[in-house]
């Protein structure tokens, strides 16, 4: 018997223990019996153990190239070794669901055990355990019935179909697990929110104690989305990184609502407001995460990504409906306990800036949902099949995005509760001047696109506002502790990691927006070149010098030498390739990019004729470099936030008051 044979029995056992955990935890919560909840926790841990066994079993089958399993034969091949053989674990539909369940059960056990160790109220933890066990049970049912990763083949093929060469890229190793980590991570705050509602413990404990999970999930999702864009940019050869494809949208929607949630919980923490709203936001976020998981596997949408049009959709819809109806029902049932303890004092207050942030993020999420589902709705009503394209999304997202960016600059300048217009006018002056100067400077160097001018102006405004915050923070530490500027800056960052780490994340977003705005100036040229011929693009001259061919066991390589010069001066030589992958019988272009902060020169060879003539498609993408730089800055900011000791439940208000000398003095 092989290790893989353990897979299916392990999944069945996991389902039994998950159902057991759900029943025990609910009983423990209702009857206030800690012994039942303890048993539920143990049962959940055993569930996780069995899911780990199943995942190990599938991994073993993949590494052993056991093609008697349909899954292994479909997503792996003998030539596939090392990390990419492992990537097949989440490379197919069934495996990706198993991976989802694996993350879910592991996260659930860690979260429940930690919550108990940190003294979370018993009924909240018990209900959260029950919710998590029910979600795990649903996914386990999928894995046992319609999406069984351990289906055997009657005839064993000699080799598997392998993994598409396009997917054999380092970004593809990390991108899917990061997205799943993000999606699954939101289960934890969702479950504890439901736990708090069901047990009527409606203080802030549920979100303060799951904050680390929320931030972790959000960070993973953010980086996962950027990596997906980076993969598309460096592998697909159309010169772009985001196409508003339904699958991209599926990951973007929960990101938008989660971002709204991360901001609005701050209001609840500081001002005891938005309580209903926060519970709703985490419910929406998790529903969208599950919806995204479902959308990408249902076949209900036509996407450039293809999916198994399997029976999964029929299973997901009732689950999603149950989650939404149940969630909304619980919120309504507990509405009386969710009243805000405070009201808005003034329109000019940080509360209203946060409110505006939420409205804009929700508008953005609704737009994506509308654009993604419109084809389905239109077909149902008129019978006509339509698709919604990038012009729609761009038209909505440019104004929404710029407004949000401006808000990231305005927000930090306004105090809590209320502020006089005069004080606000004084503090906003500097950033406004920075914005206007930038716009004038951009006009002077010849930028004429209104959208790009606004984008650059707003980015400068926001950067100036954030830099101002750091300067003011450091000045306080400098005076009080007699430090020089450097250590004072570090002190500012480490004393209130959440606030200043958040600003660093905002700076990263500003850089990304600068990069996105650069796409307004993209140039594209294509030409069919014989050896020795040249083409011009945006001031560059590209000369096709030479073609070198070679063979490896996997592919025939056709490598071009393209000399790049500018104003007669040699800049670099790029080597885009056009390769034929033998196993897949597929041509694939390897893109060559010369990336600088000013612009990317991006060259793709789309065909190579037998006589050596090459069809060359070239792009000059200004400022794209800043997108990846911005993502790195965002990651650093997230690191700062996550590295700090987050306020322990119940201590939140006192701690933040001490740690915020700057806000207090204003």
């Amino acid at each position: 018997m092989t290790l893989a044979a353990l897979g299916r029995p392990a999944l069945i056992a996991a389902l039994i223990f998950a159902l057991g955990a759900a029943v025990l935890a609910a009983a423990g919560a209702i009857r206030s019996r800690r012994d039942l909840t303890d048993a539920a926790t143990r049962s959940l841990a055993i569930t996780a153990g069995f899911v780990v066994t199943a995942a190990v079993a599938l991994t073993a089958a993949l590494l052993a190239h056991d093609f008697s399993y349909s899954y292994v034969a479909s997503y792996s091949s003998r030539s596939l070794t090392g990390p990419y053989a492992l990537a097949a674990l989440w490379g197919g539909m069934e495996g990706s669901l198993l991976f989802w369940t694996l993350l879910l059960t592991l996260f659930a056990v860690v979260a429940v055990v930690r919550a108990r160790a940190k003294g979370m109220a018993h009924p909240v933890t018990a209900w959260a355990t029950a919710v998590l066990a029910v979600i795990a049970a649903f996914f386990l049912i999928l894995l046992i019935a319609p999406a069984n990763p351990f289906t055997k083949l009657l005839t064993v093929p000699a080799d598997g179909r392998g993994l598409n060469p396009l997917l054999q890229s380092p970004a593809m190793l990390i991108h899917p697990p990061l997205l799943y980590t993000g999606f699954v991570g939101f289960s934890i705050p969702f479950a504890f929110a439901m736990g708090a509602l069901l047990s009527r413990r409606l203080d802030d404990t549920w979100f303060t104690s799951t904050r680390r999970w929320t931030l972790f999930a959000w960070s993973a999702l953010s980086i996962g989305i950027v990596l997906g864009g980076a993969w598309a940019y460096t592998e697909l050869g159309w010169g772009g990184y985001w196409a508003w494809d339904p699958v991209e949208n599926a990951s973007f929607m929960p990101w938008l609502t989660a971002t709204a949630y991360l901001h609005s919980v701050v209001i609840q923490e500081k001002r005891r407001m938005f309580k209903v709203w926060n519970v709703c936001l985490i419910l929406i976020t998790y529903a969208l995460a599950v919806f995204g998981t479902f959308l990408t596997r249902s076949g209900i949408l036509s996407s450039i990504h293809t999916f198994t049009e399997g029976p999964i959709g029929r299973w997901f819809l009732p689950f999603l409906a149950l989650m939404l109806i149940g969630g909304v029902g619980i919120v309504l049932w507990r509405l009386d306990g969710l009243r805000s303890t405070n009201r808005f004092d003034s329109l000019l207050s940080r509360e209203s800036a946060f409110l505006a942030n939420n409205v804009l993020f929700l508008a953005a999420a609704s737009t994506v949902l509308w654009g993604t589902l419109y084809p389905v709705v239109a077909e149902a009503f008129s019978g006509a099949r339509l698709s919604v394209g990038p012009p729609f999304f761009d038209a909505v997202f440019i104004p929404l995005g710029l407004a949000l960016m401006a808000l990231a600059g305005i927000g930090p300048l306004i105090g809590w509760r209320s502020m006089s217009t005069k004080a606000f006018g004084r503090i906003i002056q500097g950033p406004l001047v920075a914005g206007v100067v930038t716009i004038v400077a951009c006009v002077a160097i010849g930028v004429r696109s209104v959208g790009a001018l606004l984008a650059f102006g707003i980015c400068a405004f926001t950067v100036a506002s954030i830099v101002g915050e750091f300067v003011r923070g450091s000045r306080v530490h400098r005076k009080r502790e007699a430090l020089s500027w450097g250590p004072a800056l570090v002190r500012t960052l480490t004393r209130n990691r959440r606030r200043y780490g958040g600003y660093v994340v905002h700076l990263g977003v500003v850089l990304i927006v600068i990069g996105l705005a650069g796409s307004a100036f993209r140039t594209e040229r294509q030409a069919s070149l014989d050896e020795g011929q040249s083409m011009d693009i945006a001031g560059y001259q590209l000369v096709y010098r030479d073609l070198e061919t070679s063979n490896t066991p996997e592919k025939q390589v056709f490598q071009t030498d393209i000399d790049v010069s500018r104003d007669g001066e040699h800049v670099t030589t790029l080597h885009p390739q056009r390769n034929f992958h033998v196993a897949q019988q597929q041509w694939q272009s390897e893109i060559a990019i010369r990336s600088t902060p000013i612009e990317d020169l991006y060259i793709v060879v789309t065909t190579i004729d037998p006589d050596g003539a090459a069809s060359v498609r070239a792009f000059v993408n200004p400022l794209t470099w800043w997108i990846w730089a911005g993502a790195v800055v965002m990651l650093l900011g997230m690191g700062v936030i996550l590295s700090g000791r987050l306020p322990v439940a119940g201590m939140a208000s006192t701690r933040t008051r001490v740690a915020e000398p700057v806000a207090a003095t204003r």
Partner: protein
Amino acid sequence: MGLAALLFWAMTRPGSTAFYMTPTELQAHGPTTAGETYRLNGTVVPGSIEQNGLTTTFVVSDGETDIDVTTDSPVPDTFKDRADVVARGGYDGATFTAVEVLAKCPSKFKAKA
């Protein structure tokens, strides 16, 4: 309200929405109007791909109807015989002229390669 207005405006912009058709539907529909964008979805008939400089011609089929497609745009790597493709452009009653050809992503979630 503001969002509804913004959405409405965005939806009516040219290129925002496109009709999505199979070869059979497109043939029944006939020539397309200039200014409207159409997306034609089908599979590439084996052996029909011809490359001539930057121009690619091929035949898209849904098993019932075949439609000739011509494009000056580069085709993606996953574009090959039997690939599931979406061509965006217009149809004059005989040939579909595409400004963009997309082949469905070799996604991880695909059961049959």
